[in-house]
């Protein structure tokens, strides 16, 4: 397979269709607190739901609250209009908006007579021994139910084998980040590549990403007026970054849950407690400020990334009604000021209706920080 598939932003569903045609199950999930290793170990294809290129969410709006974020509404729209044709949905309570996707889809699927594996796992918002133990129990229930659903029990060996594959992805993504740091891969391209992980089987993804990295290593650096980092709400639209990069910025790093945060460091498995290792890894890694006790660590990681990647400015995109990233700037700004990195805050919706507004802000920001 050529790596061209990595750069396709539309959700074709081809891989899931082919997977299902072989008699196996494909299940969607929302939020990176759902460990894909469990799905892979059950021989279920994990499909991370996104709403890239959704232009109309009017069907979902009839179901969701007006206070739901447009990402959640658009994902539900894609479930309702058949963009996703999957065997079920696994959801962590990453945020309330995402939880509403599961609530509504569960009801709509039932109403339409569509058989679905529906399961929600609780991911505590604080990290200590008790909460990790609770989360592990939640994952065990998921593993048991999923194994029964797919016909392949989730075993320690299966989980270890799955972790070896996800770690291979993490290793390749680390190489991708090096290429971003060297300005050989744009932020737009990097997000496209990371989004492809949502829709391809893990074997397809590893093969394609390996090819891409080998090719991209030979590139020269992209000329840009300013090196930027993106942080904020779930961003699954590479076009959003393209608008910024068209104005002279180069997004060389991110702290986005569809970007760097969904991959992270390698997962180290303790043979004595395989599922416990997975629970500990997924609950303690700093994906987003949903937790009550990880915000200083997230801020420190952002500051450290600024230093390591020679970042000149941060763009903080905040989706309207985002509960996780709603008010982080107030706490983060002093840390960034201390290292002399300015931050531009922009509000956005899932559907790109404000490209012009974003462009003027991005261009002015680049003018302000370029050396």
């Amino acid at each position, binding site marked *: 397979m050529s790596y061209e598939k990595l750069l396709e932003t539309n959700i074709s569903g081809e891989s899931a269709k082919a997977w299902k045609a072989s008699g196996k199950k494909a299940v969607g999930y929302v939020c990176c607190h759902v460990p894909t290793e469990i799905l892979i170990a059950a021989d279920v294809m994990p499909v991370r739901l996104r709403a890239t290129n959704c232009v109309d969410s009017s069907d979902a709006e009839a179901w969701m609250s007006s206070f739901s974020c447009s990402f959640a509404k658009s994902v539900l729209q894609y479930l309702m209009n058949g963009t996703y044709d999957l065997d079920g949905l696994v959801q962590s309570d990453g945020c309330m908006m995402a939880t509403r996707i599961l609530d509504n889809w569960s009801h709509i699927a039932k109403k339409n007579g569509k058989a679905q594996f529906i399961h929600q796992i609780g991911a505590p918002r604080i990290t200590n021994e008790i909460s990790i133990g609770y989360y592990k129990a939640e994952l065990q229930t998921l593993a048991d139910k999923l194994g029964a659903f797919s016909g392949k029990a989730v075993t320690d060996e299966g989980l270890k084998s799955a972790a070896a594959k996800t770690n291979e992805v993490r290793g390749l993504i680390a190489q991708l980040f090096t290429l971003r740091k060297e300005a050989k891969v744009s932020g737009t391209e990097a997000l496209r590549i990371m989004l492809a992980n949502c829709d391809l089987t893990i074997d397809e993804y590893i093969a394609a990403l390996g090819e891409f990295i080998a090719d991209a290593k030979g590139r020269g650096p992209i000329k840009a007026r300013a090196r930027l980092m993106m942080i904020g709400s779930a961003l699954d639209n590479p076009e959003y970054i393209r608008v910024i990069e068209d104005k002279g910025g180069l997004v060389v790093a991110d702290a986005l849950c569809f970007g760097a945060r969904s991959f992270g460091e390698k997962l180290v498995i303790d043979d004595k407690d395989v599922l416990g290792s997975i629970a500990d890894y997924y609950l303690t890694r700093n994906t987003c400020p949903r937790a009550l006790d990880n915000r200083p660590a997230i801020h420190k990681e952002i500051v450290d990334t600024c230093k390591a990647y020679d970042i000149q400015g941060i763009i903080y995109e905040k989706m309207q009604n985002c509960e996780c990233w709603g008010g982080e700037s107030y706490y983060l700004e002093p840390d960034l000021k201390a290292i002399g990195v*300015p931050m531009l805050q922009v509000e956005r919706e899932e559907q790109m209706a404000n490209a012009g507004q974003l462009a003027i802000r991005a261009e*002015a920001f680049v003018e*302000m920080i370029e050396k």
Partner: protein
Amino acid sequence: MAEIEKVEYWRWTESNWKNPDIPDWRGSLITAGVDIGSTSTQAVVMADGVPYAYSNMRTGSNSPDSAIGAIDWAMKDTGLTLEDITYTIGTGYGRVNVPFSNKTVTEITCHAKGANYIYGPTIRTILDMGGQDCKAIHCDAKGAVTSFMMNDKCAAGTGRGMEVIANLLAVRVEDIGDMSFQIDEEPDPVSSTCVIFAKSEATKLMRTGWTKEKVLAAYCHAMALRVVRLLERNGMELDFAITGGIAKNVGVVRRIERIMGIQALKPAMDTQIAGALGAALLGKELVEKKRAKENQ
């Protein structure tokens, strides 16, 4: 049936100006800035970094035509032609549609530079209240932007919102500021989240017997509150000044000053030209830099 006279209350006065202290521009470095905003277009011509001529007119439906119209009106009776202008910078929403520009720069950068020229190097916070958006800008002593924040999405708190109210109440837009003080007591503000909501609320208040003056006071109050929130979010550092069309509306300006407990610097020239002025100044700097490099 007799034709009803249609009065466009929202229309503000267009103007052009020529510097009487510069009798001849020949021999000077001529640079220009053209700011095509959503509502108004300005062209400023500078001779050796001093304003020589400008025009301020409404933006039409065709941005290139607006740019040409504005520069032509600014150059009228000066003997200048486009060929005499060494460098032109386009700015504003229509900056990419200035057919004779050498470069484009955002209006945020240009407004800071222009305000630095108009108000002097002590200016640190600029509130630009434009036709369809509003910007709180911080700058340094050279007029370089250090941070900025813009309003999101709605035209409430912008010139367009004021034009809508002018038409609704049949009051000339330029009279709104003074009229809004012809009241016994400051009323509560109308809705500031949406121009359409504000319009509906103003209609309702008129029906309940409020005078036009009182409704205008409530509207100016709402607009002031809205932009004060933007200023507070970006932080206030003195000296402070307001640019853009709404800077001419005392009803909004004095209320901002009262709410913030500060005084805005008073301008010595038309605040609507700040963006184009900044663009022309940046053009001059670029030409001088290039010449200095060539002479090295």
